[in-house]
């Protein structure tokens, strides 16, 4: 069996009296789209945040490509090529699309201007951002300097996904990327997900939307009451089965998805 990209065992995270993650396991395999589903408050966001360093778990062990890892911040995860599209997108509304794509990893000009005066290479960053958005079919080219707050919800989502896709080398986490979108914009995001997978980058997709999950997921991780209940193969179960497992209406299968 190939080494999982992420393997987490016995993760615990408490917020005061609330146990958001209760001895949960987690596994992401190479090249797959892993959907994470579960009721509101089940701890879906919490477990992926623990994997990418956005929160530090109280207990448990995380292995990335087989090596034990303890992230202290999302910056460390990102330096390893892990990108996250947060539920709230984590964009700076007043800054431009290009600025947002490069936040925290700006490119400086070559030579002494960049070295001593720390001058940014804005044209290079704008070209890169424009290329990436065009590659993902997200834009007409002239407006890369536009502040993000002037974009529609779907366009912002596009910027956040493009940023993740452009820089991820290990895997991408997407927390409810279609929750706030219309039909057409959701479709665009699902196409982006398939696009990223076709380049061999695995994706963790948290979503409430069963049709979307069943359309793009290779495996489904069902989260319930702070821990992984089971994993299923979407080809073996129906959407109503999945909902029944996740709400506790039905006992989970004895065997996890192979």
């Amino acid at each position, binding site marked *: 069996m190939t080494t999982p990209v992420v393997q987490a065992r016995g993760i615990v995270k408490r917020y005061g009296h609330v146990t958001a993650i209760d001895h949960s396991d987690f596994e992401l395999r190479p090249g797959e789209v892993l959907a994470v589903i579960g009721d509101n408050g089940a701890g879906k966001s919490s477990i992926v945040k623990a994997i990418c360093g956005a929160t530090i778990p109280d207990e448990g062990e995380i292995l990335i490509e087989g090596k034990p890892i303890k992230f202290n911040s999302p910056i460390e995860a990102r330096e390893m090529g892990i990108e996250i599209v947060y539920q709230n997108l*984590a964009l*700076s509304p007043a800054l431009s699309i290009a600025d947002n794509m490069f*936040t925290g990893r700006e490119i400086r000009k070559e030579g002494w201007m960049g070295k001593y*005066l720390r001058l940014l290479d804005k044209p290079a960053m704008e070209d890169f951002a424009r290329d990436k958005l065009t590659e993902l079919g997200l834009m007409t080219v002239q*407006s890369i300097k*536009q502040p993000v707050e002037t974009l529609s919800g779907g366009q912002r989502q596009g910027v956040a996904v493009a940023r993740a896709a452009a820089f991820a080398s290990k895997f991408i986490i997407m927390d409810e990327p279609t929750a706030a979108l219309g*039909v057409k914009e959701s479709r665009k995001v699902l196409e982006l997900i398939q696009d990223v997978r076709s380049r061999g980058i695995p994706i963790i997709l948290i979503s409430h939307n069963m049709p979307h999950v069943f359309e793009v997921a290779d495996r489904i991780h069902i989260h319930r009451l702070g821990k992984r209940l089971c994993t299923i193969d979407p080809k073996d179960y129906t959407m109503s089965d999945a909902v029944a497992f996740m709400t506790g209406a039905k006992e989970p299968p004895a065997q996890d998805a192979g």
Partner: protein
Amino acid sequence: MSDTPQPAPKGQEFEQTLDQSDTKVASFERKHHTLLERIQHVLHNNPTLVPVIVLVISLIAFGLIAGGKFFSAFNLSLILQQVSIIGILAAAQSLIIITAGIDLSVAAIMVLMSVVMGNLAVFAGVPSGIAILIGLAGGVGAGAMNGWFITKVKLPPFITTLGTWSIFYALLLWLSGAQSIRGQDIDTEAPFLKFFGASFNLGGARITLSAILMILVFVVLWYMLNKTAWGRHVYAIGDDKEAADLSGIRTDRTLLSVYGLAGFVCALAGWASIGRVGSISPQSFYEGNLDSITAVVIGGISLFGGRGSIMGALFGALIVGVFRSGLRLSGVDVLWQVFAIGWLIIIAVAIDQWIRRVSA
């Protein structure tokens, strides 16, 4: 419509028609409606435009009302000289306000450090250059102390700097014994402290070095804010700190550097103020905090953070100077100058609110 699953090549069945639908949503085109909305958008993208327009209009208006004596090169350079110290403080204040903070201690840091420089150079016999370096370092320390309380102890900037304002003010009264250091003593013991009071004539204008320093400070900070990654991070923090954190900015470290730098700029203003005032007075610039905030707000920098150009604060300081000078030369009572500045502040904030409501 049947429930049996079809071999759907792409998407859900109900989404099949999407391919034929108009594709505009995914592009970044936008439509403008009314003239007012268009103005709102232009201002949104160029927040410094408002203070520039106000400055130009007030220059023309006072030129018409007060006549030649207002528009003389001498008077205009006098305005520049008069606003130089508050201008430098406003530059420091802008840094803080762009991070969505506020600094009530800027003037106290400035005067405290001028007292430190004066005490060391005039009374303790420390060479002027070293006294100044110690004062500038003290400014960094005072600013970093604010920054430490805000980032590490997680106190709100308003409360922190309200506290340190009193602390620094008490310290400066103690260090100075509530006494001024006289101009003659500075001249004999440490004339270099008055360096920025020097001036030269240029056409009919008299340019003081403190005015040049002010412009230099603005240019350097503008470069740092707009052309370096650090500057982009400062804006991102003011815009949405949590988002900045999540997108990989070391927000606490950046904030600490902002407060330290602001403290340094305040101390620089302290040095320049010795030349500008001619003596070192613990009672001077007591309203400097509020004056600096006034300049920043009139300059179109949002008190909510993340928006506005630091150059706006320069124009804001100049607008205040132009109003004071113009109204005085027009023979208007001082109280109406204060009255006018008050309205400027309220109008500036109202315009900022309106610009921020720009529709997507």
